[in-house]
């Protein structure tokens, strides 16, 4: 498994409508947003998933994200194609960060543009729900009390 310290896995699909990256550097959400703007669209939805410091009674010191990068890219592309079959999504730009993240940092940024707002909200929400179900990326909580936990849904 290659270890990357300062590079990103990223690419753009054939028609230039989809940009994906898995990156160790902070996510530039303005660049994501700017890249999906289009005169054909009336709506841009940007979602940022950020590191929450307090969850219930526990305090997060930091998170570590790990990705199975090749498959994560494949799976992201599959989900975006699925969304584009359901809604008239014009462009999608998505970045997921891996490595060490502090509270407040952005773990994922996804920007999409659509002709109207309804489908923009629905497609963005659909993508985030599915990403959290099937894209092979994991996070480990470094709690403020010194313990650590890999996070898995429904635990």
């Amino acid at each position, binding site marked *: *498994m290659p270890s990357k310290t300062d590079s990103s896995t990223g690419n753009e699909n054939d028609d230039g409508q989809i940009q994906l990256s898995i990156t160790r550097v902070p996510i530039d959400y303005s660049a994501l947003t700017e890249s999906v703007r289009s005169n054909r669209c009336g709506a841009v939805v940007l979602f940022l*998933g950020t590191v929450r410091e307090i969850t219930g009674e526990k305090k997060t010191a930091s998170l570590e*994200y*790990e*990705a*199975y990068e*090749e*498959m*994560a890219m*494949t*799976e992201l592309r599959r989900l975006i194609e699925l969304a584009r079959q359901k809604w008239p999504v014009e462009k999608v730009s998505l970045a*997921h960060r891996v490595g060490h993240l502090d509270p407040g940092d952005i*773990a*994922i940024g996804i920007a999409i543009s659509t002709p109207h707002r309804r489908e923009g909200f629905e497609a963005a929400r659909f993508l*985030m729900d599915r*990403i*959290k*179900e*099937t*894209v*092979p*990326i*994991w*996070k*480990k909580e470094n709690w403020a009390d010194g313990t650590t936990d*890999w*996070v*898995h*849904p*429904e635990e």
Partner: protein
Amino acid sequence: MTVWIAGRISENMTDSIQVTVRCFAGLKEKIGKPEFSLVLPSGCSCATFKEQLVAFYPETSVYSSRLLVARNGSYLNDADLINDRDELACFPPVSGG
């Protein structure tokens, strides 16, 4: 039949297959390495692969019923058959985003 063999399968084990396993996140931590080989009964299903994995690495039993398996970037179902020389990815439920 749950035999760990570092190299190739010997010729007389014709009812066995060998797969390469990449593991991630908590599973990788439990097993202590990111990649290894595993010998499996020929014609075994993905469900059997997971059982054998947990049998060989009992410290992974916390994940047993929840392990996910993928081949060539696509998820496998429990009933899918494993082939000789498959490269399988195996990992706990995802938690990105």
